[in-house]
């Protein structure tokens, strides 16, 4: 991995809210095309970290570069090169499928012809051509998530940040969603994903596990399982989380 280009570099990142330290000295790097899992219990500081990387929130300190740009000084360039999909829906419920695609394509500066041809491609791929002129509000949750992901990478960003993208859907739909993630990764898009489904952690190239604002473990799922001498990621996570309560 080392020889590959690093698209995210984070060194000694801190984020404090008053006395509370949400991100405590985070350091990691993510390579181009990698699927990087960002795990942690609720309140461990995952969303805080992802918001800093996306330029939605200021870090308290640390060196952070995303897609080669500094998050303090080159915020707009960072934004041009990333996609983002959050657990809250990012699509407009009162616009149709195509209108949403057109809107997000348009604000990233794609031409009308590009938007039309890419939209067709996307709808064919998701098998959503029949729903092209349907309101988002009329779609089932699984479709919305797939569409939201596809819209987040519509402008072909270097990195896509996914903040718990598959909450509330069945395992089959989640599996289909991960097929989309693999496709994006194969196309060279780096995927930075937070989740608390441990089966999803197995799909990642590397995972980091956050406990109380700190990264406690960071490696491939295989190596982590070996390190903790357990059979699956669930147990890796539990032994770390238990460790956290011991400290408290």
């Amino acid at each position: 991995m080392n020889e590959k280009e690093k698209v995210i570099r984070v060194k000694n990142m801190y984020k404090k809210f008053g006395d509370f330290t949400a991100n405590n000295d985070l350091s990691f790097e993510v390579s181009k095309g990698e699927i990087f899992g960002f795990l942690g219990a609720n309140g461990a500081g995952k969303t805080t970290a992802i918001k800093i990387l996306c330029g939605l929130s200021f870090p308290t300190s640390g060196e952070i570069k995303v897609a080669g740009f500094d998050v303090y000084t080159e915020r707009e360039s960072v934004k041009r090169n990333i996609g983002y999909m959050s657990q809250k829906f990012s699509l407009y419920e009162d616009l149709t499928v195509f209108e949403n695609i057109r809107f997000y394509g348009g604000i990233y500066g794609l031409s009308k012809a590009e938007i039309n041809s890419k939209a067709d491609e996307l709808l064919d791929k998701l098998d959503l051509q029949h729903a092209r002129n349907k309101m988002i509000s009329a779609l089932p949750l699984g479709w919305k998530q797939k569409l939201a992901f596809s819209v987040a990478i519509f402008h072909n960003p270097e990195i896509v940040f996914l903040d718990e993208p598959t909450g509330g859907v069945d395992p089959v739909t989640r599996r289909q969603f991960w097929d989309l993630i693999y496709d994006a990764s194969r196309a060279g898009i780096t995927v930075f994903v937070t989740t608390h489904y441990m089966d999803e952690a197995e799909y990642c190239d590397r995972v980091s596990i956050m406990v109380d604002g700190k990264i406690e473990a960071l490696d491939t799922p295989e190596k982590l399982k070996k390190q903790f001498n357990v059979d699956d990621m669930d147990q890796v996570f539990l032994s770390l989380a238990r460790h956290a309560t011991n400290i408290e």
Partner: protein
Amino acid sequence: MQVLKYLLQKEFLQIFRNKSMLPIIFVMPILQLCILSFAATYDMKNTNLYVVDKDLSSHSRELISKFNGSPFFTVKEIGFSEEEAEDELFKDNIDAILVFNNDFGKSVDLRTQASVQVLVNAINASSAGLYNAYINSVILDYNSGIKPNFVGVAQGVPYNIVQTTYSHQFNPEMKYIPYMLPGLLVLLVTVVALFLSAMNVVREKEIGTIEQINVTPIRKSQFLMAKLIPFLIIGFFELGLGLLIAAFGFQIPILGSIWLIYLVAFVYLIAILGFGLLISTQTDTQQQAMFIAWFFMVIFLLMSGLFTPIESMPEWGQKLNTLNPIAYFIKIIRMILLKGSGFFDILREIVILSVFALVSITFAVRMHRKVS
């Protein structure tokens, strides 16, 4: 430019797709103008009188018949007891009491001071003032009728040498609607602009799409422009609709230039929309935004001179009004419509409104945070 185009396209789609929005934009203004113009009238009709006539002379009856003959008064009952009359006043069955004491007729005959006591229901102070004025004018009319009889001057020759004559400039018949309707136009445009803009950005916060917008390279100014322009256009539309209703429905004279009204409306709407967006950036839910907008709306409106003249407010109230955009626009639109004032007549007000617009837009842009 392209970004703005896509943003605007999205805003318009959303506005016109919102089922509760269309009636607000198209139906509310018409209803508001019609209902308020006809109902919120200061013209007086149908004041119910209770007359306590202890005199029962020809003079008291003559005065009573004058009241009966007036279109503004209905003599509901004639009795002898003040208690009974007050009871009726208390029950709200009548609006005023007229009391003739038993020496009324005699005093008229003897040309000494004859007095009539008037009791008015003053719960609504402004209508009480009106009753009083109308009753006085009927009595005055009666006075001028009896004086020649007793002074011995020939009938028809005016007894009063000095007389005041009035001419009401710009609204010669003292009609209520030409005075009220321009103000209602302002109210209309303000309600639509302030509420729609105040609710808009906060709505995107509520549904979460603002976050998605904030990770895109859209600039703050582009985002806010896209929020502003549609409501500016809707405001213009409302104003045009209102002016058409005013001109053709109510025959309000439009003496000044429509273009000048639109120029002022442009500046005014920027000020109001900026303020609405500012509310939107400082609140987290549509409910909060609604209440804050309503709070300012009520204060601005009641202070604005639409219902009560600014000149009769206490000094601190008048000073407060120098910060009230609604007051300026109402003043301007009345001047342009009813007096035909031109650009230089209202220059001072335009300059002040421009300052408001500049300040509110600057604050809205400053306070809108893309990054927390």
